[in-house]
């Protein structure tokens, strides 16, 4: 028997003085019959992600970000693989254009934007309050960041599953994804999942097709590099650019003369 104090989500939100948020986040049709959904109807939460090594977080938002895309640390607490916090998701969350940006990218469906609190309520403040409200369901009068990791995760799972809190948490997730995979401020997220790094991470420059010597960080300066050297390096496999001087082999029997004109347009 779960010994948690069982408060309804809306009660918790009201407890924290966020009654307007309750109304604003109440999606039409999301709660059949218009009544509160009893907690007994909530799905069982399966926590299946044992944390590598937990760390203290300075605030609730970063504690949640570290669950959405976690950093991975070794036994000493040293960073092994960065997460959303290291990708500076906090900076992304504070962007003035975050909502139109994430909406235009498809990270936020219009229904989420429609359900967000009206007016100029700070998203960060609203998410922070939501996280505390979710935390209170686990341990009353305990901040989200103060919960053990497994309880934080359980609270977050419930938050994503709750029609009232899901829109704000979806914004938080969008900020994490944008920072981590969109490389808004750095490329640590991309590198963490196996993509090649930016050529010029300091300035966010991403290029391709300019050869480097294998193992070298910077592309060759083609203005000063002798073409004969390039050819020799390519022949010796020392050039990382496999496109150099390489045309695809023709495909026997696939005659495109009846499909394409001389300019490369379909006939």
């Amino acid at each position: 028997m779960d010994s948690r104090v069982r408060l309804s989500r809306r009660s918790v939100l009201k407890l924290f003085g966020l009654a307007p948020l309750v109304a604003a986040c109440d999606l039409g049709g999301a709660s059949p019959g218009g009544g509160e959904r009893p907690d007994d109807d909530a799905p069982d939460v399966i926590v299946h992600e044992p944390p590598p090594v937990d760390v203290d977080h300075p605030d609730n938002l970063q504690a949640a970000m570290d669950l959405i895309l976690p950093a991975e640390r070794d036994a000493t607490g040293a960073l092994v693989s960065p997460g959303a916090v290291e990708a500076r998701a906090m900076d992304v969350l504070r962007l003035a254009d975050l909502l139109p940006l994430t909406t235009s990218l498809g990270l936020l469906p219009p229904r989420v934007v429609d359900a967000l609190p009206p007016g100029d309520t700070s998203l960060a403040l609203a998410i922070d309050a939501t996280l505390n409200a979710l935390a209170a369901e686990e341990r009353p009068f305990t901040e989200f960041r103060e919960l053990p990791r497994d309880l934080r995760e359980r609270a977050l799972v419930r938050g994503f599953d709750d029609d009232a809190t899901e829109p704000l948490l979806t914004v938080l997730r969008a900020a994490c994804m944008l920072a981590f995979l969109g490389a808004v401020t750095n490329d640590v997220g991309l590198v963490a999942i196996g993509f090649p790094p930016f050529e010029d991470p300091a300035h966010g420059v991403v290029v391709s097709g300019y050869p480097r010597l294998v193992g070298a960080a910077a592309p060759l300066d083609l203005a000063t590099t002798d073409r004969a050297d390039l050819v020799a390096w390519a022949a010796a496999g020392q050039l990382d650019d496999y496109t150099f001087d390489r045309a695809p082999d023709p495909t026997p029997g696939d005659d495109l003369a009846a499909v394409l004109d001389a300019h490369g347009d379909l006939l």
Partner: protein
Amino acid sequence: MNVVHSDVVIVGSGFGGAVLAARLGEHVRDALPGRTVLVVEKGGDHTGAFDPSAPAPDHEPLNAQGNHFRQSLAPAYLARVAEVATDTAGALADGAPTLNVLAGVGLGGGSNVYAGVSLRAPTVAFAQTDPAGRRRWPARYSRAALDPLYARVEAELRVTRLAWTDAGGAIPRWQLATKRDLVFAEGCRRIGATAVPLKLAAYDDANEGWWSQGQRFRGRQNLTMNYLARAKAAGVRFQADSEVDRVAPGGDLGGYVLTGTDRRGGVERPFEIHARVVVVAGGAVGSTALLLRSEDDFTGARALDQGRERVGARVLGRHLSGNGDYGVTGVVGDDLGLDVETYKSKPIGSMCPSFFREHGFLVLPFYAEPLYLALGRISTLQRPERPTALGRWSTGPAVGERDWGLAYKRRLARFGGRMLSMGCLALDASEGEIRLGANDRAEVRWPVTDPATEARWSAAADVMRRIYEALGGEMFLDGYRKDGTVNTSHPLGGCRMAERPEDGVVDPFGESFGNKNLFVVDGAIIPSSLAANPSLTVAAVAESIADALVAGQGTEALASRLA
């Protein structure tokens, strides 16, 4: 209330509006002194951001290639140049097919977000017929008729065909296809097909970083660098950050009055524009939505939807094509030893036309920011047995999985440098619809997929799967297969042109049936899918209409209309 008068008003500045602005602006300057042309654009004016002659700020150091090209996913910038239209009701109903449309906003319209691919539409595209057997395109349009106009647009946009090699140094490196294209070509070769380099509206553009959605470099040809610059030089006035809500007959000049909201300077003010000639050019979704909002002011013989008026069959908002867009993402095998670098360099550099004759589709490898892994537009992490959960907007984790957390992060790492995205452009049956939703917001729908379209997509998906497998990898299905969701960046139609009023919203010159001097000239009037990226065709059709208006050939001359 800000009240403006102009003889000609063009609403929108994409591939239709920009061409009209340049050509009619030059005509007015040269032959109709005293007359005025005004372009009204919903989004902002990013002209300075694209200006190749603008000096780079001192505080921006040169990059490794010695120029100032920067990564273009700068959020503050991207938020201003792209928007998504969708089917909100469908998105809330699990299992219902939905449609998502990506469009560019701001001065330059679709050129703010396009990939620069500039292909002429194939002959067969113009020969398509509707279910009644009638040709979808008016008789004056064919590939042969448009070829001279295609050539004109290509010159204006500096369209260049890429190459596989630099031919011993004879071809500049910026003109080469990318690493991604070489991997794709190898996959095509392994299944007996052939990849060829593409034509791009680009010049000196290899180093610009993220190419995909919005960019601040001189490489890809944004319309502000050519047609719109030409219009400005001719004296055309521009009013950005001003959204037209409605157009109605009347006004001080005896033509039309447009009402809307001016958001310049961050302050909202209502405006009224009085015009003799109005060209609606807000893109397939934008133009159609504007006419739908304005319908009540046009009745009887002036009804904007003569199909509904005459035969009870609605045409306004119908016949929306997604141009057969169908994208998937997957991984290639390790055995290649090649890093795909899927998110670098040119967005698209090659295509495989081997299946076009038999099946009516092209396959292209395209840029994909790793961010796509988290987007619903290409649902990369979806498993074939469960293509969508909530569908469309998230990666739709499989049962028991989440789209966040450590396990999710580790799933992302499976893609890494081996990620490769592909898509097809195909002939479809223009199955989509546009209508107004809450707050008069445009809603797009894809109620049902025509069996012929379904067959093409199935064949294309099979080809793409074979390419992945030939490369030792695996294709991850997108959200379409089970739920019927369609994602497109190439919307066409909604105000299709036709020979007869009951078949379309505008005549072959883009003029409203029953409403003289009210035109629609953009992707909204294109009456069929093209199976090729549409920017060049939209611009060529606009050139054709501009020619007719200037010369008075086939339609009344602009000079006469303004007399």
